[in-house]
């Protein structure tokens, strides 16, 4: 194969992966923005989404139909987590929410390991692939990228053009002032955590359709998602996509030219370097350290 097309192929794969990462990273960024809480259990919410779809498919429900169900379940779960756990410590120092969400992460992961065991699972939804000249794009990646793109567009529209979106943005900018203007910040916090978990859950369903995963997937995901959010800049949604692109490209390129272990090293290095050299993110945002 022509080396030019080879690199194009890798870049296309990276782009398609970036779309998937972007969805979960937006959720993480949003939760950070509104609640000022680092959701360390985000990867485990993803895992939950992935394995709920997996369970549905074993009883005969098509995974693509399972996605809306997962969205609903994770939304409710997110709201419950926020109302009964995170809300109680949201005004406390950072360590409280961090350790509390760590507890949630331990809980979800081990519940997952109990129910679905530590075996790797995957779902083969659309096995075919498209051939455009010398390039090959698997159809499932394309479909998932389209869903991810659609979801992001809808989400951006809601955030920028609707009243709910406006209240969310107000709560990010200045929670106290937003409260003084009559916005029920508590409600917005619960809603945001719900939406964040929903986005994580949907990304999880994408993951189980693309790769094989086990209930410990949250471990490796959380670092990638944090790296994306930090590279992109906190509270900067355009930046989140830039971050997703950087991480996904780094991962696909190193995975292609070296091994997956090297790509883990690359992600970790980007995480550290971006925190130390450019804590405000590539495109600017709040300082992260």
């Amino acid at each position, binding site marked *: 194969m022509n080396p030019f097309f080879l690199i194009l192929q890798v870049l296309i794969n990276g782009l398609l992966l970036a779309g998937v990462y972007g969805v979960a990273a937006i959720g993480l960024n949003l939760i950070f923005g509104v609640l*000022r809480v*680092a959701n*360390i259990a985000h990867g485990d919410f993803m895992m939950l989404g992935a394995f709920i779809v997996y369970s549905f498919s074993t009883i005969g429900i098509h995974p693509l139909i399972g996605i809306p169900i997962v969205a609903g379940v994770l939304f409710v779960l997110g709201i419950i987590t926020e109302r009964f*756990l995170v809300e*109680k*410590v949201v005004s*406390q*120092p*950072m*360590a*409280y929410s*961090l*350790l*509390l969400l*760590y*507890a*949630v*992460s*331990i*809980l*979800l992961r*081990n*519940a997952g390991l*109990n129910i679905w065991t530590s075996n790797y699972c995957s779902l083969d939804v659309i096995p075919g692939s498209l051939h455009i000249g010398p390039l090959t794009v698997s159809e499932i990646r394309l479909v998932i990228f389209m869903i991810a793109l659609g979801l992001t567009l809808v989400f951006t529209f809601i955030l920028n053009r609707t009243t709910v979106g406006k209240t969310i943005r107000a709560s990010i900018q200045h929670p106290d002032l937003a409260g003084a203007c009559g916005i029920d910040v508590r409600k917005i916090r619960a809603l945001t955590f719900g939406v964040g978990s929903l986005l994580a859950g949907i990304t999880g369903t994408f993951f189980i359709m693309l790769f094989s995963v086990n209930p410990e997937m949250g*471990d*490796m995901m*959380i*670092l990638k998602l*944090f790296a994306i959010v*930090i590279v992109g800049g906190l509270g900067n949604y355009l930046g989140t996509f830039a971050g997703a692109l950087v991480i996904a490209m780094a991962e696909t390129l190193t995975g292609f030219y070296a*091994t997956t*272990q090297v790509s*883990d*090293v690359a992600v*970790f290095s980007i*995480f*550290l370097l971006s*925190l*130390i050299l450019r804590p405000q993110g590539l495109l600017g945002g709040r300082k*992260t*350290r």
Partner: protein
Amino acid sequence: MKVRLSLLQQFGLFLIVLILVALLPAIASTYLITFVLTLFMYIALAYSWNFISGYTGYISFGQIALFGIGSYSCAILILKWHIHWLLAAAMGSIIAGAFAIPLGLIMLRLKGPYFAVGMMGLFQFLAAVAATWKSMTKGATGIYLPPVSAVAYIYFAFFGLALALFLATWTLERSVFGLRLRTVKEDEEGAESLGINTTFYKVFAFVVSAMGCGFAGGIQVFYVSYVDPVTAFPAVLNIMMIIMCLLGGMGTCWGPVMGAVLLGQVSEFLWAHFPYVYLILYGCLLAFIIMFMPSGIMGYFHKRKILRGGIHTVLPNLGSIK
């Protein structure tokens, strides 16, 4: 009820415990010895975590990474150079400490959640390195060491380590050094404006913590006479050392030992009766601690005035970084 012991009484109590511990291997069953031995390891790990997270407020979710470095260093030293195991464990501890100096200088620049996630990443990163660096670590096959004949030596080694870390914490509580360390947790910028070199104190605490973890890893690897990436970087211990320290009270002298002894017994019971769900229960316990008793058992004692501290006593807390 108020408990207030004079220094002499405290010393006497301490001496009784010391004699009991020393006599235990001679009188107790092997099961009890191995159980108490594990408790000592828990105590050592809880104190190690307490140094960095309890005193400076930098929550680490991957301190067990340094346990892994200690384990592998010790195993490789024993295997390649046939060094005496205790010396190998001590060198493992020094290697972990030496590794922690540049690591601490980099990682402790990160604040709050970034440090926590960074350490979590480091933990996975090192486990991946151990699995891939086959010429040194033999990858997933693992390194086998000669089996241990006398458990009593291991028992005393762990006891010595736990005691050393306790005494270090005890001294820290009563020193200006400890106070300066605490200022990092309470108000880092304020401390810096008073001329305290916070980086030095943070990295120092990190290195001490690393040495404690590394030593524990070294002894543990000789005890189980086997090491692979999963046993060198045990996720369960990582979770347990955090919960133990929090249960007892973060940033206290007696908290970690209380938490470790309590949770060690609970864990022994749960492990035997509910082998699969006990980590779920740990998650619940951690959530409970954070929501209802964030200052742990020591904090409760202080609040109910059961314990009367001196002027050096600071109520255990989870830090003030917003």
